[in-house]
């Protein structure tokens, strides 16, 4: 049996070598296969362990528990609350980042004194780790002694409790995320704007189109693929958000800013319940894949629409 098996393996290998000699491009499958193994093997392990009682401190006592962790998750109010926070954070972040980023891009696309300096400054937030950004904003948003409330007082406006109130905490972390991410959106869209030929705008001007019409009927349609591309990148960041929220609020007050990622972290690393934490993480992955998949489909359609492919 052993002899037959090894002969069979040898035959397979020699067949494959022959095939590779005839089709050299097939060699490129090897790195792809390795990458797939490196990515998929731990992912498959994650799926497997989501059906077990895997406890971080007792990795030698793992037992198969079937759907228990998944059922527990769907029955747990924390899950629905975390899903709700995740989606709201994503929607708010996206709905604000794209128009604000586009506005910044259009402003920076204009000729004005000091444009280079402003563009250089725009990159600064991107270079700051999001955890540092969150800590800095946390200090700035302190209700007592924070610089934001200092300015509100100077302007005779009511002070805000920012990260400390269940009413304003989620909005406040959205603001932090916007500060950190908006430069990225603006830079991508500014590059896209510069790729639009001036001749199109000149022709439209000749035809009597005003600024709003030129924006609505030229800029926006031509930028659509880029807008969707930015939405894809931002969606990935927003749905996976961790550092900003953890450093700013740790998911509180109460559970106001607890996203699926934070819930997964708490269960897996704080409560040590890896088996229970994994369904939260995997479900977040599924949500992310669905949303990004849909946006990618839209992106393909939009590129087709504007004749980019």
């Amino acid at each position, binding site marked *: 049996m052993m002899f037959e098996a090894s002969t069979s393996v040898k035959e397979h290998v020699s067949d494959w070598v022959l095939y590779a000699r005839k089709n050299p491009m097939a060699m490129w499958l090897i790195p792809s296969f390795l990458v797939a193994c490196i990515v998929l093997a731990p992912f498959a392990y994650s799926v497997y362990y989501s059906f077990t009682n895997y406890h971080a401190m007792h*990795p030698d006592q793992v037992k198969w528990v079937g759907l228990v962790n998944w059922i527990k998750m769907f029955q747990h109010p924390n899950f629905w609350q975390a899903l709700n926070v995740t989606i709201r954070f994503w929607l708010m972040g996206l709905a604000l980042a794209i128009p604000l980023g586009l506005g910044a891009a259009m402003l920076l696309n204009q000729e004005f004194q000091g444009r280079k300096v402003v563009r250089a400054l725009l990159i600064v937030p991107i270079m700051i780790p999001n955890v540092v950004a969150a800590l800095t904003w946390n200090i700035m948003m302190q209700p007592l002694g924070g610089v934001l409330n200092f300015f509100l007082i100077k302007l005779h406006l009511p002070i805000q409790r920012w990260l400390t109130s269940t009413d304003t905490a989620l909005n406040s972390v959205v603001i932090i995320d916007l500060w950190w991410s908006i430069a990225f959106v603006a830079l991508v869209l500014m590059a896209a704007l510069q790729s639009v030929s001036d001749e199109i705008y000149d022709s439209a001007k000749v035809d009597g189109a005003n600024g709003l019409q030129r924006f609505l009927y030229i800029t926006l349609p031509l930028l659509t693929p880029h807008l969707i591309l930015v939405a894809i990148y931002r969606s990935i960041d927003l749905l996976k958000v961790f550092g900003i929220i953890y450093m700013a609020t740790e998911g509180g007050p*109460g*559970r106001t800013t*607890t996203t699926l990622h934070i819930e997964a972290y708490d269960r897996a690393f704080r409560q040590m319940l890896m088996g229970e934490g994994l369904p939260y993480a995997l479900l977040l992955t599924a949500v992310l894949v669905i949303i990004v998949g849909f946006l990618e489909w839209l992106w393909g359609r939009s590129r087709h629409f504007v004749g980019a492919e």
Partner: protein
Amino acid sequence: MHNRSMFKSLAVLLVLGVLAGCGAPAAPTATPKPQPTAVPQATAVPQATGWTIRPPAEAKINWRQEAGKTLTIAMTPHPYTNALDAMKSEFEELTGIKVNIVTNPDTATQTKITNDLASGTGEFDVFFSGHTWDWNYWPHFVAYEEYLNDPTLTDLEWYNLEDYYPQMLESVTWDGVEGHKLGTGKIKNLPVTMETYILAYRKDLFDKYGVKVPTTWQEVFDAAEKLTVVDNGVQVYGFTSTGIASAYRIFMTNFHNIYLGQGVNPVDENFDSHFDDPKVVPLIKGYLDTMKNYGPPGVNTNNWNAVVSGIATGQVAMVIDGDFAAATYENPEASQVAGKMAYAPAPAGPNGRFSGTWYWGLAMNEFSKNKKAAWLFVEWATSAHTLREAAAVQRSFDPPRESVMNSPEVAALVKDWGDGSWMTTVKEALANYTAMRFQTQGQVTGDWSKQVGGFLTQYFEGKITIEGALKSATDASNKIYDDKGLRKP
């Protein structure tokens, strides 16, 4: 086995990502016994008469037996970490062992410890760990008895384990079973700092506005109202507190005292919760209302740092919180109120006065490949000699050893803190009513803290009644302990 562990870690990391962070504590218990007991029999060493702190060179062991080894120590930002950074060369010269100290924020350190212990890689030899952390990691921390009782590794007479405050030794001795009492089992952590909760107040403001030092909770609430004033053009808030958003810390510092003082165990020995006991509801309401009406904005999410800074910047008149903060209040380089503070015991209820506690200490990794060298480090780092220098020079407070607390060096540093009232108050608290109040539990503390804290926050924000908040908190707490199988109604 090792490869499997690695794959498990990879699997988890792939999906969850590697993240950073900070210690968030746990859930309650309370033993309304003012004074804990216990030094485990296995390691009990009679304290020698006239025992004095002596330098490591006088210990009768060969400190150089592990020379050439390298240790990696996981620490969080803390005065004791500063002390280690400053003093580690002393250890390296003594032993020939090189020490790398890796300092990360609490959450990042917790993640690193979890990964290290779950995968069994032994990246770190020694961890900085506190009590709720210990309860999670206990299975993979090393029991110290083997090392303490090995005369080639430990000179017990020089080290003097019994020099630790008894409640500290009790806190780090456990059998590892959730719900079981502390004080029996193995020692798996040796504290380097500890704390008790006392009243710290601005004596100058109390005198100026004719306010009596409060001895009951109602007096605290009344004093807070009188001390919320504009003083010399500066808005002063009468009271501050640790936040309620994560409930663990407010229970540890003050709520256990309020409940137990009324004879109510907030979570009893059967893990049954009694937050809504009618005897206590008015006091919890009074506490939260005082925070809201006479505390600084954002007080509901204060971490300990914000509490300390509120007092040190002169914006708050009074707090009942960790006594260690006096090291900041009384440091003119870090505080605007040095020399203006005084200290007194926390308020009492009809059933007495109760303080919780917290410690930070050093625990050894089961998967360390340098356990003997790691023990030599722990022995040196937790010795009275090292802790005395950490306290007296680096202001790492409170020292968990009596000899250090009573040393001339520490006495000289603290003698003017509140005209000596700090030392008197702390000694009284440690002698009479400081103990670990939470029942041992590991996995549910974060969830408990958030859920209970969420209901307290809803009352604080005026969204529900106090009765509703405490009833909901009770139900949520009971459900958590039911789900964990800890509750025995």
